[in-house]
């Protein structure tokens, strides 16, 4: 296990990626080793409201001299994420990371299919950039509600072309790329006979549910990064459980957040 740390971090940079999403760069003075699919629990201020930290997948970690830069891609959906969008640069926060288990990045006989829906992009982008650097081949499927919500297209494109793969864009409203859900785009290519070694995915639960069925239908191995409300992020509160195939409830923060669809109970999302 990579050593967890409760890092003192500073808000080093922030930039808007879409009307609802932004990139937050956090700087720490300690090293952080993390792999794609792992996440961190980030404090959202000093007071007791909000009380709990928020979970964010790591979108990238890099070392600049003595400073570690951690990148998060965040969608503003409520109290905590609104605060994060408005903290002054230089504000001090805490990030407990890396937590959980990431994607397995082994290459296989075929390419990998990386699938991201909306703000599910961060761990998938992290995976894409690591895979590209290792020259492991993949296609990247990126879906969003509309064109403006397709995030980090330049980086997605660069990583995918380095990996010699296809970048497939979809939007629900057809304003960019193929119209419809990202899972449908994947389904089309699968039924056209495209073969993948494995699917790595993150996105809203209905998308991951659809993907579970799709993977099952094609006998495909898929790894999903799940999202459950979390209090502790370290397996002690038992708030964030998912049901496994063997009937056990396990904390997604500790045993996941990435699970193979074969481990999960058939209707894990209900």
């Amino acid at each position, binding site marked *: 296990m990579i*050593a*967890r740390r*409760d890092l003192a971090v500073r808000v080093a940079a922030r930039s808007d990626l879409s009307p609802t999403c932004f990139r937050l760069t956090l700087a720490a003075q300690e090293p952080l080793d993390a792999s794609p699919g792992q996440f961190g629990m980030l*404090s959202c201020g000093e007071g*007791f*409201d*909000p*009380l*709990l*930290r928020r979970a964010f997948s790591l979108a990238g970690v890099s070392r600049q001299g003595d400073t570690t830069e951690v990148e998060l891609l965040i969608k503003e959906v409520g109290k905590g994420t609104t605060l994060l969008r408005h903290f002054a640069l230089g504000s001090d926060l*805490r990030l*407990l990371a890396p937590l959980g288990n990431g994607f397995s990045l082994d290459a296989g006989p075929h390419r990998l299919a990386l699938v991201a829906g909306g703000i599910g992009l961060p761990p998938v982008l992290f995976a894409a950039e690591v895979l590209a650097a290792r020259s492991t081949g993949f296609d990247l499927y990126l879906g969003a509600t509309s064109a403006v919500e397709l995030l980090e297209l330049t980086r997605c494109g660069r990583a995918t072309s380095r990996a010699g793969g296809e970048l497939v864009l979809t939007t629900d409203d057809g304003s960019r790329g193929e119209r419809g859900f990202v899972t449908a785009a994947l389904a089309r290519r699968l039924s056209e006979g495209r073969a993948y070694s494995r699917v790595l995915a993150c996105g809203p639960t209905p998308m991951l549910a659809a993907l579970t069925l799709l993977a099952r239908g094609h006998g495909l191995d898929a790894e999903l990064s799940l999202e*459950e*409300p*979390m*209090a*502790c*992020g*370290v*397996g*002690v*509160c*038992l*708030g*964030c*459980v*998912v049901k496994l195939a063997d*009937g*056990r*409830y396990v904390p997604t923060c500790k045993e996941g957040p990435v699970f193979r669809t074969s481990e999960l109970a058939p209707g894990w999302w209900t």
Partner: protein
Amino acid sequence: MSVRLNTTVGGLALANPIMAASGTYGYGLDLLEFCPPERLGAFVTKGLSPRPRAGNPVPRIVETAAGMINAIGLQNIGVEAFCRDALPLLRQRGPVVAVNVFGERMDEYVEVIERCEREDGIAAYELNVSCPNVTAGGIEFGHDPRPLERLTGMCRAATRRQLWVKLSPNAPDLVETARAAVSGGADALTLINTLRAIAIDAERRRPVLATGCGGLSGPAIKPIALRMVWEVHKALPAVPVVGIGGVESGRDIVEFLLAGASAVQVGTAIFRDPGAPLRILSELERFCAEHGVAEVRELVGVLEWH
């Protein structure tokens, strides 16, 4: 100035008054790099039942203003797995272990204790009586003084170790239940457990949690917990109290000690900060040093009421 941090709870001597609370620290082995159990006065395990329990469906937790509601449903690995897998590792480290015990019937409490009696390395049992008593139509054990006294008596008969009863703040008469636990043989009382509460999802027109109700914890409840600790301490000044509810700082510990607690548990704060109990311990030490308090025990119950 060096501060004597040690305290006692009933017959149990503790190196310092801070414990990790049940349900917020696993079985003592999850946060070793942030808060090793042997540095604490004691820690309390997640509630253990005779057999493993799967717990409730999700959502199990929801945040509220300065608090959270949980309905974990007492998921646990069962006393057998605890004794087999966790306890040997704990014994190597040497913390003071309190086992939190619950059941759906009185004999299930006894069953957990009896299993634990076969093991070294357990200092105390803490009875979680905020569980529905299945044989009494689902009323919580902790709500009715007579069954509570009987339950405590049965557990008392099963062990010579320290026996704490963790009171429910939802009980109709807190002091009466406290008395019942004491006359049943409790060495100390832990209070408070969570307050029954609901969060509602206005969109879905449903409770947020899968089970509907849950238990409120965190800073929001601290003023209620302090009041209850003080009430019980005033009514039963000779009975040791372990205070709990919304503790986030060393100053909070001092407040609970003043109100009559001999030791204090830290729960929800651990979710915000995995090192919270140790941070709070050092804050307590600093507070005492700065305020000329040579021994933490001086503070217990010395609140001056007007």
